[in-house]
């Protein structure tokens, strides 16, 4: 795939995801029925709802989005402001989680055993779990400790639990793949060439980090999507404000503009990761 094709697909993905969400949220149901429930039997209430929250035509949605106007929530708050606050809360958690995953990957590449074993099985198991299992395990631990010892959960501990809940499933995927890639590369002919010119074992592993970086890039997108999926559950389950909580609120309340905004932010950030992967693979001369 060439760069132009990759860029076209990326742009189509963002627009396509947004348009699909609009189709589902704005076109198929009557939002009034969903939002108002029993009150939707009263025509004047429905009329007032449509006046306040009527879905805009898609062309206007796009035009407004170009000016960073993503509409308003059912509470009348601009979606861009709502999501801005939410992202500001979630961003540090995502960054720490991302850095932890990168560090775990590097350590795995340096130290992974030559044969698959317990590390791989554990990582594969964790990577396979639903993203809400770890937050609930975190809740179990926290509540058990509180019940047993009456310990107060500090901000630091809360951050640690949240970051772990976000990072562990996608991190386990990256660690499992890093171990697999490293192992495969250690058996390769080019690794043998490196040994043949006198490279010690640690030097070999460090040089092969380039190969890990190149080969793991297709998984970066999955890693990020996994982190966002974990965020969707971790924040509401752990009672924290943030992007995940905002997204779940949008779903529970059937808030169309907020849902569209959430979709746009998710699709856009996944696109950024895709482009980053593209740049890394081009740098290493690999096919896209």
């Amino acid at each position: 795939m060439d760069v132009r094709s990759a860029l076209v697909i990326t742009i189509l993905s963002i627009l396509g995801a947004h348009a699909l969400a609009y189709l589902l949220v704005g076109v198929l149901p009557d939002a009034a029925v969903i939002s108002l429930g029993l009150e939707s039997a009263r025509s004047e209430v429905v009329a007032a709802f449509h006046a306040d929250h009527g879905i805009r035509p898609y062309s206007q949605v796009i035009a407004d989005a170009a000016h960073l106007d993503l509409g308003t929530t059912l509470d009348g708050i601009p979606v861009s402001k709502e999501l801005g606050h939410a992202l500001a809360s979630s961003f540090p958690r995502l960054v720490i989680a991302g850095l932890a995953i990168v560090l775990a990957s590097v350590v795995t590449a340096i130290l992974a055993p030559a044969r698959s074993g317990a590390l791989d099985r554990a990582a594969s198991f964790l990577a396979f779990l639903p993203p809400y299992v770890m937050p609930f395990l975190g809740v179990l631990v926290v509540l058990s400790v509180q019940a047993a010892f009456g310990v107060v959960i500090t901000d630091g501990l809360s951050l640690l639990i949240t970051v772990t809940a976000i990072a562990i499933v996608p991190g386990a995927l990256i660690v499992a793949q890093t171990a697999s890639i490293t192992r495969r590369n250690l058996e390769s002919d080019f690794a043998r060439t490196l040994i043949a010119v006198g490279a010690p074992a640690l030097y070999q592993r460090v040089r092969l980090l380039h190969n890990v970086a190149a080969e793991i890039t297709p998984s970066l997108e999955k890693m990020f999507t996994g982190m966002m999926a974990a965020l969707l559950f971790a924040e509401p389950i752990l009672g924290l404000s943030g992007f995940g909580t905002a997204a779940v609120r949008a779903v529970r309340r059937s808030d169309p503009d907020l849902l569209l905004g959430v979709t746009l932010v998710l699709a856009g950030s996944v696109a950024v990761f895709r482009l980053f992967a593209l740049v890394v693979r081009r740098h290493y001369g690999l096919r896209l």
Partner: protein
Amino acid sequence: MSKVEILERNVWVALLLPLLAGLGLYLAFSGEAGMPWASFSLRHPLGTDEFGRDVFATILAATGLSLFKGVLVTSVTLAFSVIVAEVVTLPRTASFATVIRVGASIVESVPVVLWVFIALIAVPGPRLVVVGLAFMVVVLPIAAHVLAGEFSRLRQALYVEAAYLAGAGELRVLARYILPNAKAVLMPFALQVLGAAIAVDGAIGVIGLGNRSDLDLGIFLLRGKESFFQHPQVLVLALLMYLVVYGYLLWLGSVAGRRWPSGGKVEPEMTGL
């Protein structure tokens, strides 16, 4: 032949056994409802829930139902995906392949679970049907794209070319040359889709979109969290069931991997939510 070897030879039978066990236990224990939140007893080893149902039996039944629903949705999804993948890899369908690729990119831009949530609130209908259809529609382009990649690779195999030269038709090539050799990718991928299906089913309960009385593992997690200090066994057992189910699916994956070695082609994957 040992029991493990028998299981290993019959992966699908192995998959159906737990759900049969779960349903059976439910039938055995469901009987008449007991007192709400009854404490541990011989009849109810882990007590009863707020509806007077045996906690152990209902969570086990919920697990079995999750597996059943997951297998059903996965089978239908993969059947359609195989058809689409086969069409996409035929000659003169290159543009259709591009459509599938773009479609996969679109649905992968957002976590699958969010698509299912949006479909659930947008489309009226029975939850099982809506969720199943939504899951299938969302996963189909992704699955078709993955399978099309493998089918394309196999189509370039020399033995497939030789089959065409010998006069074999498309159906014969698909049935005897491509699908049997795609098992190394198809089986682990099927288990990943199954894991995703079970996870999506539970996710709906976790965020509170289902009914509290539903036999749903996600609902049990949510209720378990709410009642933890009084009745910790609900959350603990529900979490344990998730760990057991996914450990079991992973074991099935390793069995499939030994039975149909991929030679390193298949890397570990997430549930893809």
